[in-house]
Every structure is written in structure tokens, then in C-alpha cells.
């Protein structure tokens, strides 16, 4: 990590400590968000990190965004930074437009959404399922084939839903005529595609998981050091030590995988394999770390009063968002099968 990113990460960490403490996290749990933290992150200038400055973004690369997301995941921060920066900001800037201010989210138009050109703009009608943070977003960037449609608040009604951690995942009922100023054509030769969208969403979730898992590990370490049974801290039992070491190994593997995938993105490496692998490994890690963290905590970790749940419910939620281990394993499996025996090694080393 270079010094600029290190300093940035430190600043974000301080903002999370100041604005995103346990009370703030708990307050978000029923579909809320942390507006004060968002304001602090805007002041730091990271809410559009990785979006080029000439399009109104904060600049920086995907690796920097991933570094910030790890801290947000660690803090269970209730802010749509992944959606604003890595998805909506990327879509809008990728069309050569300028990103608007405020929190955003993004989605791919599914079969439930119809668009028709008509006088005054583009008529957009139908539904989009489980859009993260939609009720708090000022805009929703929708990738609809070869164009990006920027929905404003009045263009849709969010039917409120949440994920396992209580983060907003709203079904949108869209009925609007979107003016041409908010309909952007994806330029020819652009890297923007549904697959690329899915990959960035997966990388973002993997980065958040790496952070949340680190917190779950730290809570387990602290608890194992404090909790005494049979006259000594449970951390002195080898069986517990082995659990903690196994957690640390999984967290380290997933963390390096996520960072390496971000690096592949930024350096023009084989990001498809890298991102798929990072999401697979992060998803596997999420299950192992959440279950061991609870095992180490005993019954208290299984209660609403204990903060462990903020991290573990996020791990359980995020591993299934943007494609779970099985989906991304399937993607990799198809790549591997078409590479065949001689192509497997070049595929894994990015030296095709």
C-alpha cells in the first residue's frame, strides 16, 4: 500500500471511529444509513474514489477503493460507498458524463424493466429487485444494455427490504420519463458491460467481507483473552488457539486475494479470473470465520446485545450478494474447462 492510500485509510478509519461507532451501527440495523459518516467521507473526498477527476470523481484506482471498503466493512459502516464509487460513478464516468453529488446506487436492468424512447426522453417502467441502499440514494444508475439511465428519487418507489444485516435492499417500482440529460450512451469499445458490473460488485463485496472478517477475528481474540473458564482465559486452550489461527489464515488469504484482484484490475492483468477467485475465496472465508467467531464467543455472541452480530450478519449477507461462491466457481469452472489441461496453468498465472 503506498503512502497516499495508507494516509487515506487512516483518515477513513478515524471518521468511522468518530461517526460510525457501535451506537451508530446499531441505529442503522433496520434499513437505516449513517448520514453523518457519509458527510464525513464526502469531506475526506472518498465517496467517489476511483472515479476519474475529470468526470467529477475523487480519482485514485480500484486498489484505493478496495482499501477504503475494507475499513468500512470492518466498521460495519452503513454507507453506499461501493455503489456510489465503484458502480454508479464508474457507469456515469464511463459514458463521459459528470457524476452528480450525493449518495448513489446502481443496478442492471433485468427482464422486469422496459424502456421506450418517447417525446421528452426515455420512458422507464417496471421493477428492479433488491437494489442496495435505494431508499437513501439520490440517484440510481441503471445499466440498460448499451446505455446508462440515471434515475432520480421521484422516478421510483422503493419497496423496502433488507439483507441479513438489516442493510437496505429495496425492490424498485419504476415509472418515469427520464430526460435525455440523464440518459447516457455507453461509448463503443467501453469496458462497461453487465459482466464487468457484476465483477466490480463482487470485488466490492469481497473487500467489505475482508474487513468484516478482520473485525470478527479481533472480537474473538479479545473475547478469548478475557473470558475465563476452568481458571484460565479460554485463549490458553489449544483447541481455541487453533480456531483463532484458522480464522486468521482465512482472513489473510481472502485479504490478499481481494487486494491482488484490485491490482489486476488496475494494471490490466487478468481481472476476470482474479475477481471471480477473490469472491469465491472471500465467500468461503465468510462462512468459516463467522462460524468460528461464534464458536469462540459462546452463547453471548449469539445475542442482540453483543456487537459480533454486526460483523457476522454482514459476512453471511455479503457472501450471497453479487454472486455467491457457487456462482463464481461456475464462472471459473467454465473458464477452466475451456482452457483445458494445457491452458489451466496459464489461466491461473495470468500468462495466457
Amino acid at each position: 500500500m503506498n503512502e497516499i492510500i495508507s494516509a487515506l485509510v487512516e483518515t477513513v478509519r478515524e471518521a468511522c471511529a468518530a461517526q460510525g461507532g457501535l451506537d451508530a451501527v446499531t441505529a442503522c440495523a433496520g434499513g437505516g444509513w449513517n448520514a453523518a459518516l457519509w458527510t464525513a467521507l464526502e469531506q475526506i473526498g472518498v465517496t467517489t474514489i476511483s472515479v476519474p477527476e475529470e468526470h467529477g470523481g475523487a480519482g485514485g484506482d480500484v486498489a484505493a477503493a478496495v482499501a477504503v471498503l475494507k475499513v468500512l466493512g470492518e466498521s460495519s459502516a452503513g454507507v453506499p460507498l461501493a455503489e456510489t464509487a465503484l458502480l454508479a460513478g464508474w457507469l456515469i464516468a464511463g459514458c463521459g458524463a459528470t457524476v452528480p453529488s450525493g449518495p448513489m446506487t446502481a443496478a442492471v436492468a433485468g427482464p422486469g424493466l422496459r424502456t421506450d424512447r418517447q417525446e421528452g426522453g426515455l420512458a422507464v417502467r417496471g421493477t428492479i429487485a433488491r437494489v442496495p441502499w435505494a431508499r437513501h440514494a439520490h440517484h440510481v444508475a441503471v445499466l440498460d444494455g448499451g446505455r446508462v439511465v440515471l434515475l432520480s428519487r421521484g422516478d421510483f418507489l422503493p419497496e423496502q427490504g433488507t439483507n441479513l444485516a438489516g442493510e437496505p435492499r429495496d425492490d424498485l417500482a419504476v415509472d418515469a420519463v427520464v430526460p435525455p440529460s440523464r440518459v447516457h450512451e455507453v461509448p463503443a469499445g467501453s469496458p462497461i458491460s453487465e459482466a464487468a458490473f457484476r465483477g466490480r460488485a463482487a470485488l466490492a463485496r469481497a473487500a467489505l467481507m475482508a474487513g468484516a472478517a478482520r473485525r470478527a477475528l479481533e472480537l474473538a481474540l479479545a473475547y478469548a483473552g478475557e473470558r475465563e473458564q476452568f481458571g484460565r482465559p479460554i485463549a490458553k486452550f489449544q483447541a481455541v488457539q487453533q480456531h483463532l489461527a484458522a480464522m486468521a489464515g482465512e482472513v489473510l488469504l481472502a485479504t490478499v486475494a481481494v487486494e491482488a484482484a484490485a491490482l489486476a484490475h488496475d494494471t490490466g492483468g487478468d481481472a476476470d479470473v482474479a475477481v471471480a477467485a477473490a469472491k469465491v475465496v472471500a465467500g468461503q472465508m465468510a462462512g468459516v470465520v463467522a462460524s468460528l467467531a461464534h464458536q469462540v464467543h459462546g452463547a453471548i455472541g449469539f445475542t442482540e446485545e453483543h456487537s459480533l452480530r454486526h460483523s457476522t450478519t454482514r459476512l453471511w449477507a455479503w457472501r450471497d450478494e453479487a454472486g455467491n461462491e457457487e456462482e463464481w466457481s461456475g464462472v471459473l469452472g467454465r473458464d477452466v474447462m475451456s482452457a483445458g489441461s494445457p491452458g489451466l496453468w496459464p489461466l491461473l498465472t495470468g500468462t495466457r
Partner: protein
Amino acid sequence: MKDLWGLEPVTLPEELGVLRADVRAFLADELSAGRIASHCDQWLGGWDHEFSRRLGERGWIGMAFPARYGGSASGALARFAVTEELLAAGAPVAAHWIADRQSGPGLLRFGTEEQKQEFLPRIARGECFFAAGMSEPDTGSDLASVRTRGTRVEGGWRLGGTKVWASGAHRAHAMIALARTEPRTADRHAGLTQFIIELPDPAVRIRPILLLTGEHHFNEVVFDDVFVPDARVLGEPGSGWLQVTSELAMERSGPERILSTFPLLAAAVGHLAEHGDPAGAARVGAVAGRMWALRQLSLAVAGRLEAGAAPAVEAAVVKDLGTRFESVVTDTVRLLSQVVPDPGSSLPLPRMLAESILHGPGFTLRGGTNEILRGVVAKELGVR
């Protein structure tokens, strides 16, 4: 704990692409000409001194040595690229493995000028092979408990004791053995010394310990009052522990902790693409994804080694996760291919499946059992 999270991913420098392509072309030629055959776990089982010599001719052994000792002063990352290519191809690398991975670097770091000149150029040429003398009948994971004794005599030392699991000692030209040279004190890591014992020696008895397959790789090595001159003490008498632990960081984090069963996976992919249930592709994908990630972790540790650090804890993580993964590969292939393992088969898949199953127990034992390695991690986490 800070150190553990400071590990950073590494992008291999572009110039290593040329080196990698050279190694690949060389291996393709070796395989197609039938000079070598692809097997699993070849860094234990694949002893072929002619092949080692051919690698030496190309400068792919002892790459880290300075030119005056026969190397090319290439860093840890260049060595990483070469060794992972050799392992992925299932090439027979056992003969020079210990010398290249740990004995050579140990000599370079701690040896005298005379020792470096004597051994390093021959190692780099693939003409001088080493065995490691660490474990003993009563000393496994608890390495500081070694009982082999070195006693000072005129002009050198007398060594008495027994080493076990010494891979390739029956064919090696030398062994680096860890011995106690001062009585044990409260500091159990003090008073240990590394000796270079040139082989064969009439006072060194080497007896095979056959693997459960009957293969001869391991040996029991008995030092029967063997004389070791002062010139064959490695490093400072008494600082053997420090030297041996620096060896372990190199020993635990390399691509050989991930790739022992890779030749099986590669062979299986072709078979499964033709005969497999398409639903099984995701299982193979999951394995491939984890392998990609483990390789990134191993590379990140190599990056730290290249920068001169001794990332012992990170190395322990690579070994723990990587070696358990090696047998996940075996099981995935076994279940999906439904091929019956057969060590005598003329077909690669049943043969390599047999090799992977039968060599499997060693993966999580060699280089420190995984339980001990998790103990190393727990200590770093502050709970031990």
C-alpha cells in the same frame, strides 16, 4: 499482529515473463522428448540428477547466488517463477531441491568464503545435492529438543546422534545437521550449531526408511562419532537456532506448498471436459479459484523475502492453508472423475491420483505439522 496484515500482493515484473516463457518452452521440450515425465509431488519423489544438471546449465538452480558463486543474483521472485513452472509441470526436481531452496541460501548467508566457493558453484551447476538434518527419532515438531551432540576436539568437532526423515541423504553430497553443542539451559534455543557433513563418510551410516508405498526417499542417518573439521561449521557455533528458523521461512511459503497435486488437477481437467458432468465444472472452478488465491498469498510472502524480511508467520499460514488444499485437489478429482486410483497404470490420471493419495499424509507434516504452524500463528495473534 500488525505484520500479518502488512502483507501486500505482488505483481511479477514483466521481464520475468521472458524467463517464464523460456522455462515453459524447455519443459515442453523435455516432456515431449520423453526425457522427463509428469508426476505429482516431484520435489520429494522425482530424483533425476541429469535433469538437475540440465537446469543448472540454464542457470535455474541457485539463481539467487551472486555471479562469482555461479548464480545470476536473481531475486526471490525470479526463483518463484522458475520453481512454480517446474512444479506445475510435474518435473523431477527432488535432487537439487533442498540445496536450491535452503542449503544454498543458508551457505550464502552464514557460510565462510571457502564454504561458499566450495559448494555454491557446484549447487548452481546441479552437481551438488544436499539433505536436511533436522528431525530426530525423539525430535519432530519440537526442533529445539535435538539430541545429536557436537563435542569439541582438536581441529573440529565429533558428532554423535541420529537424524531421521532425511530425504535423499543416500544420494546427497552433503547434509546440514543441527546439533546441540552446549548443555541445555533455560534458553532451549541456545547452544545449537549447524554442521556441514560431506557424504559419503565412513562414520555416517545411512539406512532407508521406506514410505508406505515402498519408495525410498527418507533415511535414517546415524553419526557414529563423525569428525567435522572447524571449516565445516556453518555460521557461528551456538547460533544454529537462528539459522535454522531463517531456513524455515524459505521452506514453508513456497509454491511447493500448493502445487504438489497440480499435475493431477491439470490432467483431470482434460478428462472432465470430455467425460465429466457439467455440474462438476463448478467444483473444479472452486478449486481453481482457491489455488489462484493461495498462489497470490505465496507470491506476497516471496515479495517480503525479496525485500529482505523473514515473514515466518505468513509463511506458516501459506503452509497450513496450502498443504490442506493440496489434498482437497486430490479429493475433488477423485470424486468428479470417478477414476480408480492405480499406481501402476499407464494412464496419467489413475497414476497421478494414486500418487496424490499415497503421498497425501506427508503434505501436512513436512516442514512442521500444520497444528504446530497454527500454534505459530496463534502466538503472533498474542493468544499463546
